[in-house]
C-alpha cells in the first residue's frame, strides 16, 4: 500500500499529460508502464477532477482537504479520507508524485 502524507504537497507526474476535453479531465500516459494496456487513457470523475485542479505542488493535502470541506460543506474527516484515497490511487498509478520528490 502506497503511503500518503497529508502534510505533504503533491503534483502531477511528468509521466502523464492531463487534458481537458469538453469539460472532461483526461489523463494521457506519456511514459511506458502507466497503463496495463498499451492504449489506455484515464479520466477522473467530478470528485477527482476537483481535487486534481488543486494539486499544485504547494498546497498540502491537509490544506486541500480543508478547502474542499468548506466548499462542499461536508465533514472534514470524510473529505480527508476521500483525498487520501484518491491521491493513493493516483500515486500508485504514477500519475502523481510528492512535490519534493519530483
Amino acid at each position: 500500500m502506497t503511503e500518503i502524507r497529508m502534510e505533504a504537497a503533491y503534483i502531477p507526474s511528468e509521466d502523464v499529460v492531463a487534458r481537458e476535453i469538453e469539460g472532461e479531465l483526461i489523463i494521457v500516459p506519456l511514459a511506458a508502464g502507466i497503463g496495463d494496456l498499451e492504449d489506455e487513457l484515464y479520466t477522473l470523475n467530478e470528485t477527482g477532477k476537483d481535487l486534481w485542479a488543486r494539486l499544485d505542488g504547494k498546497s498540502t493535502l491537509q490544506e486541500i482537504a480543508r478547502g474542499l470541506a468548506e466548499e462542499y460543506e461536508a465533514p472534514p474527516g470524510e473529505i480527508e479520507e476521500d483525498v487520501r484515497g484518491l491521491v493513493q490511487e493516483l500515486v500508485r498509478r504514477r500519475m502523481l508524485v510528492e512535490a519534493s520528490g519530483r
Partner: protein
Amino acid sequence: MTGGRDFVVRGKLDRWNLRSGRKPLLDRLDVELTERCDSDCIHCYINLPAGDPRARSRELSTREWMRIFREAAELGALTIRMTGGEPLLRDDFAELYLYARRLGLKVLLFTNARRITPELADLLARVPPLERVEVTVYGMREETYEAVTRVPGSYAGFRRGVALLLERKVPFVVKGAILPSNRGELDEFEAWAATIPWMERSPSCSMFFDLRARRDSEEKNRRIAALRLSPEEGVAFFARKPESYRREMARFCARFTGPPGDQLFACGAGRSGCVDAYGAFQPCMLVRHPGVAYDLKGGSLREALGEVFPRLRERHSVNPEYLARCARCFLKDLCEQCPGKSWAEHGTLDTPVEYLCRVAHAQARYLGLLAEGERAWEVENGAERAGRILAEVESS
C-alpha cells in the same frame, strides 16, 4: 465530495466515448507528413521518390506541423494519424512524434517499418504511441516483396524494422496489399501475422487500389488499374471463409439505411480531415479536388471545421448519372463510391466509378442481395432483402 472510491475511470477512451457524450470540434486528425516514399510501389496512389527535391522543399516545416498539432489538441483531438508517403522519411519525425505525445495526443503511425532504427524503437517503447503501429507488408520473401517495392534491400529493411518492434515490445499490427507477386503467399502471410502478439484478427489487405490522388500520371493510373483484382476475384478473397464472411456481411448489410440521396458527402468527410504534406486541409485523405481543400498556411483548423467544411457537407450532386444511379442505390454502404474516389478516377466529385460499382454488385450477388442481371439502383426493397439475408444467416 461523494465518498465514493471510483475516482479514476480507466479505459480505451477514444474519440467517441467522452463520458459527457459531447463531441469536440475535432476528435482525430490525419496528417500526411510527406508524399515521398522509400518504396516505389506501382500500386500506390500518392508516392513520390524519396529524394524528390520539389516535394521536399514544399513540405511543411517542423514549426508549421507543430502549430497544427497544437491546434488539433486545443480543439479536442485525441489521436493524430501520421502517414505518408513514408512518414519516417522526415528527418524531424522523432521530434514531431514527441511533440504530439507531449500535447497528450495518441499517435497512430502508418509505416513500412524500414526506417525503424534502434533509437526510434527505443523511443516508441519509452514513450508509447498509445495506438498500435500499422506496418504494411508487401511480401513474405525478398523476391515477392521487392517485386512490389522495386527497391533492392527493402525486404531486409522491413524485417529489421519489424524485429526491432518485436524486440522492444512496441505494439504493432500488419496489413497487406494483394498483388500479382504475392498472391500465392496469402496463407503464409496470415499465419505469420497470427504470431504477432498484438494481432487480434486477420490482417486487412488492400486490393481495389485507388488511382493517383493527385491525378498526376495517366500511365501510372493504367498500371494501377491493371493490378486491381477483378470484382469476382475480390469476392473470392473475401469469401475464403464463407461462413464468417456471410455472417459478418449480413449483419453489416442489415444496418443499411437505404439509398444515400443526392448529398455528396454522406460519409464522415469534413467532420475531421487530412492535412497534406504542404498544408492543405482536405475533408478526407483521398479527396484532393482543389475546390474542397483549405489552406492551413493562411487559416486554422477551427475555421475549416467550423465554417468551411460544414458548407461543403451541404453540397448536393447535380450529375444526372450519379442521381440516377448512386443516389438511389441501396448498396451505397457496400460500395466504395465517394467524392474522393470520383476525384481520383474522373476529376469530379460525383461521377460513378464503374469498377467500384461492379465490385459492390459482385458482393451483393454473392450474398444473395441481388439476382444475376439486377441493378441495385432499380431495387425498391433493398432493406427487406438485407433483413431476409440476416434472418437466414442467424437461423443457420
